[in-house]
């Protein structure tokens, strides 16, 4: 009996050894096949280039043929389908199917212009404070009732009811509210028609005028956000409006099961004569949600779906396949700089980074190509960044204030700066990062770069949901935990410098909670640059101001640009009119068709 037990276990050892061998055998096969594909991808490296920054003007598969079902996939659901509450770029893009705003982005590749949508034209304002829009004739909701200026005013008012309508951008409150008598939103409005917001006037059903509390050159961009989509007061269900928003666009929601599926059918009351923007080619749109991202890629590769709504690029397995297949790459993918930036926040209120030389040392020491690799390389990850304004933005201009050979970092210069900072032998600090995906790899690369100049970095990772709101979004936490460095990322709400910079570098917007000027940069040159830039109507002057402001931010070394995000997005072989728009930092969903 005992002997047998021994035999059995000897057998187990042998079986284990066999398994090891089998697995190794498997690995040799795998190594062989992927070695081949690696070879191909490095072969194509020259054609990929390293940093072809700038929005591409390419238009893939133009077509005007309508019909069919557009099948979209997503890993998660939208935060909200209520146009006033959603804050995901891809959801804003999806909103174009069911919502229209006063103005919107023209359907053209690259950097689009604003054009009238519900309004007849894009207005100008001499004082940048008074903006008047005139509505088109014949515009209606999906139930056939005409859209009036009051429906738009009501929609604007909803955003003020932050206890019910929250989650979305709050620019409307910032520029329209009277701080001495804050407007509580329509649900608590004492006005019988619930139209008590004084700063918005609707003299007739076709006219709406906004009186801003301060000059704002980007106002028309705010009017293109989904937050100003008209909402019929009679059908507003408050917090539940997200489940059944009333359509003003070419489609309407047919069926919505949260986290599972949302389907759209044509809106019979949408009049193409009033709409110069939406192509509305497919007869039907289906968005399947809650999928694993590798599953999404595989379905797209197999052409059983048309595109990925998230538009953040394919996963590693699919990327490997695409890079090894030039025709797939050429016909069915886009690879644009999205406008999103990955940067390192260097906390100006945490020692020793209160000294600019210590910040400079970090800026010189960082190997930005390592950051690029951590993001996934020049195709799947992005391009090396040297400015805080990203290439698809208006007024973007390239410069490099901390040049190093091959962007790989300059140890000698960094050490000089350390000496100037009084820390010749380096120091210890904490680097905060989110615990998911590529950000940990980025943090490890920062750690390795700084180790070369004697700066010892401890990585402190936290849950993605806590990260911006709590870990680095509360300055007191940052100081208490001695967080000297933090991985950060930002995408503008619309493609202008103000949208990019105002929330993240304005020294007067350092908040005790919900702060997004993480480094607590308070530089007069930056602050006045923001004020002047947004108050000027002169293009040349604006260009100069914004470049100077960008330079001032980078020079402070409180924010070190790392990578301009790029996404390698895959589409089915039948998807038409694929092009990148800087409006959303991704493809323009409103133009897709599925008939070639």
């Amino acid at each position, binding site marked *: 009996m005992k002997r047998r037990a021994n035999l059995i276990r000897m057998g187990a050892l042998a079986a284990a050894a066999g398994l090891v061998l089998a697995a190794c055998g*498997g690995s040799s096969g795998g190594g*062989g096949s*992927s070695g081949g*594909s*690696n070879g191909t991808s490095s072969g194509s490296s020259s054609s990929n280039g390293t940093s072809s920054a700038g929005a591409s003007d390419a238009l893939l598969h133009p077509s005007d043929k309508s019909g069919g079902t557009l099948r979209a996939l997503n890993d998660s659901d939208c935060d909200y389908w209520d146009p006033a509450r959603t804050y995901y770029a891809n959801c804003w893009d999806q909103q174009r199917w069911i919502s229209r705003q006063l103005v919107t982005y023209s359907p053209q590749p690259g950097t689009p212009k604003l054009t009238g949508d519900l309004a007849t034209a894009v207005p100008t304002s001499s004082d940048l404070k008074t903006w008047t829009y005139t509505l088109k004739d014949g515009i209606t909701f999906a139930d056939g009732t005409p859209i009036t200026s009051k429906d738009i005013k009501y929609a604007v008012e909803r955003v003020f009811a932050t206890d019910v309508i929250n989650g979305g951008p709050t620019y409307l409150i910032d520029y329209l509210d009277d701080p001495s008598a804050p407007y509580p939103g329509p649900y608590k409005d004492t006005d019988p028609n619930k139209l008590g917001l004084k700063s918005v006037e609707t003299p007739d059903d076709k006219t709406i005028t906004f009186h801003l509390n301060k000059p704002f050159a980007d106002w028309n961009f705010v009017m293109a956000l989904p937050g100003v989509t008209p909402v019929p007061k009679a059908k507003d269900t408050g917090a539940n409006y997200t489940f059944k928003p009333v359509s003003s666009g070419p489609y309407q929601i047919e069926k919505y099961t949260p986290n599972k599926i949302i389907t759209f059918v044509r809106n019979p009351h949408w009049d193409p004569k009033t709409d110069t923007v939406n192509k509305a080619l497919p007869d039907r749109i289906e968005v399947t949600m809650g999928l694993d991202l590798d599953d999404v890629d595989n379905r797209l590769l197999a052409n059983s779906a048309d595109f990925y709504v998230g538009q953040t690029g394919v996963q590693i397995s699919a990327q*490997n396949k695409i*890079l090894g297949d030039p025709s797939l790459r050429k016909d069915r993918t886009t690879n644009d700089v999205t406008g999103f930036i990955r940067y390192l926040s260097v906390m100006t209120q945490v020692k020793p980074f209160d000294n600019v030389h210590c910040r400079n040392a970090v800026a010189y020491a960082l190997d930005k190509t*390592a950051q690029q*690799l951590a993001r996934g390389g*020049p195709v799947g990850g992005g391009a090396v960044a040297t400015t805080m304004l990203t290439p698809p933005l208006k007024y973007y201009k390239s410069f490099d204030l901390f040049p190093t050979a091959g962007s790989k970092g300059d140890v000698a210069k960094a050490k000089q700066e350390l000496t100037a900072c009084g820390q010749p032998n380096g120091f210890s600090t904490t680097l905060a990062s989110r615990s998911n995906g590529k950000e940990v790899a980025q943090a490890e690369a920062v750690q390795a770069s700084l180790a070369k100049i004697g700066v010892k970095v401890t990585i402190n990772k936290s849950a993605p949901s806590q990260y911006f709101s709590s870990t680095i979004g509360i300055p007191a936490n940052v100081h208490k935990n001695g967080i000297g460095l933090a991985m950060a990322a930002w995408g503008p709400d619309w493609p202008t410098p103000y949208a990019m910079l105002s929330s993240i570098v304005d020294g007067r917007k350092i908040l005790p909670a919900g702060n997004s000027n993480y480094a607590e940069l308070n530089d007069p040159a930056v602050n006045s640059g923001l004020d002047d830039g947004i108050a000027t109507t002169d293009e040349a002057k604006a260009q100069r101001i914004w470049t100077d402001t960008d330079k001032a931010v980078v020079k402070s070394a409180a924010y070190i640009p790392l990578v301009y995000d790029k996404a390698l997005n895959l589409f089915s072989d039948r998807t038409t009119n694929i092009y990148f728009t800087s409006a959303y930092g991704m493809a323009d969903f409103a133009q897709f068709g599925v008939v070639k």
Partner: protein
Amino acid sequence: MTAPPGEMMVESVAAPAVVQPEGRSLWRSGWIRLRRDKPAMISGVFLILLALIAIFAPVMVSLLGHPPNEPHYDLLDPNTAAPRGRFGGMSWHYLLGVEPVNGRDIFSRTVYGARVSLLVALLATATAVIIGTVLGMLAGYLGGLWDTIIARLMDLLLSVPSVLFAIAIVAVIPNKAFGLSGSGLRIGVLVFVIGIFAWPYIGRIVRGQVLSLREREFIEASRSLGAGTFTVMFRELLPNVAAPVLVYATLLIPTNILNEAALSYLGVGVRPPTASWGDSLAVASHGWYSIEPIFMLAPGLAIFATVLAFNLLGDGLRDAFDPRGGR
């Protein structure tokens, strides 16, 4: 209620037989039986070697590899962030190739991974053994309300989804707490969450043993000679439950290794860039395994070999010291 073997639970806890009170001869005869058990002995030798590798990891790596956290970007394809060459860039200088994205030496990281794995698993097992033995003895010997409370506590801990709770606990622990910070704190937290859900397995066995030992003559004799509760517990009972505790502790170690790896795999393990097998598997699972299987095979097989060795050794110990427990 019986202990449910969870998704990661390795052994179903069979009811151990009552052990002879004659402690010394049991240990000797057990050792003789164990020596004849070749797989257990081979596993034991393997585990001693593994422990040496873990302890002397810096020496190993300086001879055969590169520092585990040192990036080697020059070994990567700049376009794909994957290693150049076949088999993850395997060569004489990089025995198991390098990781994607940062080009760290996989051999070195696998060797260093043994440190985290063994350290956490052993400390967690020690935690479970100490808590389980003390509380199990208290419950079994004192009985009454003590028994009810401790037994319910064990039921409670075995009724909660432990992985989920463990992740939740790890997620809310700040980066400085209990006078600890950095890697020390992370390892402490891992040891705590793994140990706290593992001790009832030991506790139940000890309680069962003590319940049957309580009425035996030598205990009664000791008690009638005026020995206090603690004297009886630690002088008389402890030596007699030591053998089964040792056996089940050995069988608990592989479970704890799998638990540590699972938590790291789910992203709540040790602080980066510390190497850990579960973390390496997590990196591989983000699609890289489909490009180069070595990313998954190195940490996966390391876990497998270690866990198998502990299981074989544990089985051998059970047969040797608890002859009626295993068959």
